[in-house]
């Protein structure tokens, strides 16, 4: 009964979305206020219905109603409650409902809190939002209904794939979806602006929080996913350049570019058409990501179950959305008035270069992701494009990006002083040189890429600190610096945190790629192996029973010079519902390195295969990612988003602060 209500609410939401995508748009065109005003209650109602529908689905999972096909396929009555709930979005149908729910949530936010938006712009934004919603709801109801019933209810479900029974599932997909769908808001604003035919600083101020929000949640989602893929054996480590990973990374790159170009629109009224294009591309990449993950046209380590019919439907949706919006862009963009002038060496210039580099990076990732598909279709052989391609192509293009990330903030708007900026960055240059020397000494020599990575990280980190120190005039009186520090706009802190976080993450990436160690051995209980200066002894291996699985749990003692370092307990699990065994790693982390231990099959004579990886500095990756996300959050709380458009006085004040 509740399930049917959920299904019915979904259909009603579609009807409402259809109305919301047509009526306010016509109203905005013909200047009919009541028609435009309809968007607001429709958006709130749509969110309410989608929420109802989602709750109904979660309810079906919680009570283990196996007469619902999706519940039968993905849940089991013995599953812990958290995985029963998470299973609701751990599959194709449910994850789509979550997608649309978040879409509805953002729509409702605009409707409820967008009071400072002009009515016409607001109704257009909500109409575009509703069109996206309509597309996905039709897709869901026609090809992937999460509420479909089975003719005969089985007694027991087939359980959530054991690989997915992990806290990662509870947080990673919702975060990523918040990011994907957040980009749809920037997209809706961009389309609405094209329909209006005008883009100004106010528009940029409305778009930027949405871009920030989606960038922040995308960052969180990617970091969580990377962490999950790292501790799950066989998913290729913290980053494998897998198509599904790339699918989330491309929108992130574009969102990063958009975040930076929107600053130029807001402050300098320039780069308007480019910013609109980025907003469209960002969402296009989100849709493409959804398409890649759902359709299975590209082979991936993490893909969901596939169905070609769905793929074609999403491809059609993608073609309509991207083709339509790009045509609109080509038609309407020329009427956007070009804005302020600036010299090539200036804050704007550095942000343009940042945008170009990010766009080129996204293009190379896109090419690497789609190349196997293209070659296969053209019958040129089956290839796979893996990490080596991306390390050859991506890293060299990303390096100048990091280089200018430290320089850009020192350049003034309109016309910058490059020698002056470099002079102020002298300490960062020295730090880079020290980092090279230190890495060389610690690692007994290293590859060029490893040294360059460490040098760039030091350059960016120290450069960012110098920039902050300059803003608060550190070195003068401490009290004055303090009062400046607390009066700096939050968005300035956002940048400082995000850039510093990037530097920290680069340290981790470089370290774990360059100096990873690995050893495999067959051990009997009591035997040990040495990796570096640490010895690992297999102390014990025993059978344990937990909720819904049995496991062989090994106890491995890591010790250094006779000193106990860590106790590690990797497992091989056999879930109760017949399925292949799964391997659970055990990890001991500190700032210097991770020890990563897995236990494999027994050899039948009392020995167990044990594999040990030592991954230097890997913790820094997630620490850096976390700092970047924190930067996004801090920036989101900036005064100008909380209180709406700033008064002239405040604006001048913050400009003075920003220049100081």
């Amino acid at each position: 009964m509740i399930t049917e209500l959920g299904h019915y609410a979904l259909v009603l939401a579609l009807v409402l979305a259809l109305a919301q995508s047509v009526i306010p748009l016509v109203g905005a065109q013909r200047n009919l206020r009541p028609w435009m005003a309809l968007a607001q209650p429709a958006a709130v109602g749509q969110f309410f219905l989608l929420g109802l529908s989602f709750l109904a689905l979660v309810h079906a999972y919680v009570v283990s109603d196996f007469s619902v096909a999706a519940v039968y396929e993905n849940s089991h009555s013995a599953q812990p409650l958290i995985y029963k709930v998470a299973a609701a979005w751990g599959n194709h149908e449910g994850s789509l409902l979550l997608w649309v729910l978040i879409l509805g949530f953002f729509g409702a936010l605009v409707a409820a809190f967008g009071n400072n938006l002009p009515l016409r712009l607001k109704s257009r934004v909500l109409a575009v939002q509703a069109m996206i919603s309509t597309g996905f709801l039709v897709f869901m109801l026609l090809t992937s209904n999460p509420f479909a019933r089975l003719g005969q209810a089985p007694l027991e479900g087939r359980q959530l794939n054991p690989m997915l029974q992990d806290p990662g599932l509870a947080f990673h997909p919702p975060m990523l979806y918040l990011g994907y769908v957040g980009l749809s808001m920037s997209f809706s604003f961009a389309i609405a602006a094209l329909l209006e035919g005008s883009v100004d600083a106010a528009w940029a101020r409305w778009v930027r929080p949405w871009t920030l929000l989606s960038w922040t949640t995308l960052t969180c989602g990617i970091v969580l996913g990377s962490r999950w893929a790292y501790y799950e054996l066989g998913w290729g480590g913290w980053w494998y350049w897998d198509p599904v990973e790339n699918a989330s990374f491309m929108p992130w790159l574009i969102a990063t570019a958009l975040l930076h170009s929107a600053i130029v629109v807001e402050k300098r009224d320039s780069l308007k058409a480019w910013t609109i294009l980025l907003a469209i591309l960002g969402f296009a990449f989100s849709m493409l990501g959804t398409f890649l993950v759902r359709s299975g046209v590209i082979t991936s380590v993490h893909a969901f179950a596939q169905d070609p019919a769905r793929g074609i439907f999403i491809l059609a949706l993608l073609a309509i959305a991207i083709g339509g919006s790009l045509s609109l862009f080509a038609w309407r963009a020329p009427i956007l008035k070009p804005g302020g002038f600036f010299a090539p060496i200036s804050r704007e210039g550095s942000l343009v270069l940042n945008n170009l580099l990010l766009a080129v990076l996204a293009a190379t990732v896109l090419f690497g992701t789609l190349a196997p598909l293209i070659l296969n279709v053209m019958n040129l052989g089956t290839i796979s494009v893996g990490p080596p391609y991306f390390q050859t192509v991506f890293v060299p293009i990303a390096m100048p990006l990091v280089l200018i990330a430290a320089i850009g903030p020192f350049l003034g708007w309109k016309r910058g002083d490059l020698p002056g900026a470099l002079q102020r960055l002298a300490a960062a240059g020295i730090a880079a040189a020290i980092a090279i020397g230190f890495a060389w000494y610690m690692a007994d020599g290293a590859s060029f890429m490893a040294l360059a990575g460490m040098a760039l990280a030091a350059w960016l980190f120290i450069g960012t600190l110098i920039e902050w120190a300059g803003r608060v005039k550190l070195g003068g009186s401490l009290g004055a610096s303090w009062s400046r520090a607390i009066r700096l706009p939050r968005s300035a802190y956002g940048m400082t945190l995000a850039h510093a976080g990037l530097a920290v993450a680069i340290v981790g990436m470089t370290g774990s790629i360059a100096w990873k160690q690995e050893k495999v051995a067959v051990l009997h209980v009591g035997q040990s192996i040495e990796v570096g200066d640490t010895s690992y002894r297999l102390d014990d291996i025993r059978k344990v029973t937990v909720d819904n699985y049995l496991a062989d749990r090994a106890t491995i003692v890591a010790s250094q010079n006779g000193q106990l370092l860590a106790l590690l307990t990797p497992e091989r699990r056999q879930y109760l519902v017949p399925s292949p065994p799964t391997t659970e790693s055990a990890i001991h982390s500190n700032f210097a390195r991770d020890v990563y231990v897995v236990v494999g099959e027994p050899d039948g004579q009392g020995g167990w295969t044990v594999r040990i990886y030592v991954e230097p500095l890997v913790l820094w990756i997630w620490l850096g990612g976390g700092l970047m996300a924190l930067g996004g959050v801090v920036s989101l709380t900036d005064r100008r988003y909380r209180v709406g458009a700033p008064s002239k006085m405040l604006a001048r004040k913050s400009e003075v602060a920003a220049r100081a």
Partner: protein
Amino acid sequence: MTDIKLGELRANTPRRTMSRKTRRLYLVLVSLVLLGGAVALVLAALRQDIVFFLSPTEVAAKPPAPGRAIRIGGLVERGSLRKLGSDGAVLFEVTDLSKSVKVRYRGILPDLFREGQGVVIEGAVNEQGEFIAKEVLAKHDEKYLPPEVAKALKASGRWQESGDQTGSDSPGGNSTGNNEGSGPR
């Protein structure tokens, strides 16, 4: 009002018009340099870093250069799996039912690695002509055959004999993952 502004700009600031043009020129130049660099890198990567997929028959007919990374796919030959010594090394054969390739691997085999099952292996041939696996990928589903493996079997003309073919014809195959997220089907 804006017309006046534009008119003003055009009338009295030839320097600015120049700088606007120069700016554009700079932008185009920088974009070209970046794109050119990216294309050069991509071409270099396509030469070295692309991994081709070969069937055991293709490997037997034309052995790839030693050290060149390739992927092979097929079924694990029944009765061919041997464990060597205490360092966790294993030896097995991958077959497309007409030719087979000996593979040596050190490490933990994927949880679903079984004799008679489909497998995709990435690695390179060494000087002795042995295939040294860097990565062994087996799909987490008993009934599934990676599309590359299905292709290898089809190419060798042994498709009909290859036992279980469920799902192998779907174009949207997920082949390379040893642990992928689809529920057991």
